[in-house]
Each structure stands twice: as C-alpha cells, then as structure tokens.
C-alpha cells in the first residue's frame, strides 16, 4: 500500500485515495473526430518511468491533485495542488 503525500493533508495511506489516471489529458472538443475522441478517451502514455498523474484524496480532503510517480519504483517524486505550478523535478522529464 503506497504512502501518498496529499498536498493538503500530508502523507496518508493509499486506501484513502483514488487514482484517476494520467494527468493533462484534455477532453475532446464537442465536434472532434473519431481519432481525436479516441485519443482523449483511450490513448495513454503508460510510461515506464516518471508519469504525471491525477489522484484524489477521496477519504480525506476530497481534493484532486497532481503527482509525478515512477512506475517502476512506485515512488512518488512530487505531489502538488491543482493550480500550483509543477515543482522542479531536477530536469527529469515525463511525457
């Protein structure tokens, strides 16, 4: 069970959270074509490495927040509030 640092509540156990998948995926425009809709709905980078994600502290403050986590080590590199800018991760890029 991961230990996740909620940017509001601090480190809390994973069971209080809901993973909401990859971050920064834009909804398709109302008139988007099939490819664009499929991209928005289904295509994910599924990165092996640092991945930007959205999590929600459901059984806590209820807030969505952003995170960067390494999908091989399962370690969170950073979590930050919606609206805050992404912390400097020392040049480690994600896609």
């Amino acid at each position: 069970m991961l230990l996740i640092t909620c940017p509001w509540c601090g480190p809390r156990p994973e069971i209080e959270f809901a993973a909401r998948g990859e971050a920064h995926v834009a909804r398709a425009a109302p008139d988007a074509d099939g490819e664009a809709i499929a991209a928005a709905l289904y295509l994910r980078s599924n990165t092996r490495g640092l991945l930007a994600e959205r999590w929600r502290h459901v059984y806590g403050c209820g807030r969505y927040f952003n995170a960067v986590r390494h999908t091989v080590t399962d370690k969170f590199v950073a979590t930050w509030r919606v609206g805050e800018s992404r912390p400097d991760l020392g040049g480690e890029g994600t896609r």
Partner: protein
Amino acid sequence: MADLTALPARVEDFAGLAPLDHGSRFTAAPLVPATRFVFRGREAAIEAATAAFGLALPRTACRAAETADRAALWLGPDEWLLLAPDGEGEAIAAAFREIAAPHSLVDVSHRNTGLDLSGSEVAAVLNAGCPLDLHLAAFPVGMCTRTLFAKAEIVLWRRAVDRFRLECWRSFAPYVHGVIADAALEYTDEG
C-alpha cells in the same frame, strides 16, 4: 389523520445499538443529537461564515475549532463540517443566507451519526480499522479528518488524549459499531 405529535424524539442512529462499555480501557457512547452542516465556499464566503457561525473556520488542514457548543471541522480546503446543538439548524441556515458571496450550506444533521469513543485503548480499537497514525504526535488533540474505518468512510476528531468523536453516515452505523465491538473484545477492564 396522522398524529403529528406522535413523532418520536430524535436520537442518533448509534443509540439503537448495544452499548460498548468496557470501562476505563474502552467505552463507546452514542452522541446526543446534533445539528450538522457541510459548508463549502471560496475565500470571501469563508470570511463571512465566521460571522454567521460565530466561530472562525479553521484554515489549517485537518484541524477543528470550537466554542462551548459549536465546532467547525476542516475537511477540505473549502469544506467544513459545522456542528451545533440540535435545534439550531434553522437559525444557522438563516444566518448563512445573509452571506452574499457564493457558497453552499447543506444540512446533513441526519445523514451523519456519531460515537464518542474514549479509554486508554481507544487508539488501538480505532486502529483495527483506521489506517492512520493515531499517536499523539501524528494525530494531536484537535485534529480531525475524513478517513476510513474498515470499509466505512468516517470523520474522526480527537477531543482529548484518550477521546475521539467518530461520525459516519447513518446506514453505516451498525457496521462501524460491529467492527468496533469486535476490536474492543479483548480490551475489557479486567483484561
């Protein structure tokens, strides 16, 4: 014609369940009926709510503020659980109606029900289902948060070193009670 006076006196849902009195090691008692609101809003409304509720809403994460008979529990950066004695709901609602800034006030007096948990083993009993660190250093007196108790969502508020208030939704009360009763089995006063 239904007899309107026939309405039963209000009791909290936990009151219907078997009392759990293990003396000084662990006791769980139903709360007296309370008025509860969920208040949500942005900065301007939060300021105004202080006046309306007569209590500064705590701005520190996971902290409660209280006066003699009212309390405001921080549940999220724009969310508070407001507690007041039973019967004060309409007055509170009226006061909040005066707030011009956008906000939301929703009566949840009957949605939630609660227990007063105390005793030297209270943290051990809670940790049968609650995954949080309940050590005083990690969960000091005055801390409150939404969390889990086994498979139920609860709000937990530490009132004193050995005393917590636990709230859950009313239909979860028998379940929460059952898990607490099981966990408390080994903490009898003799034991």
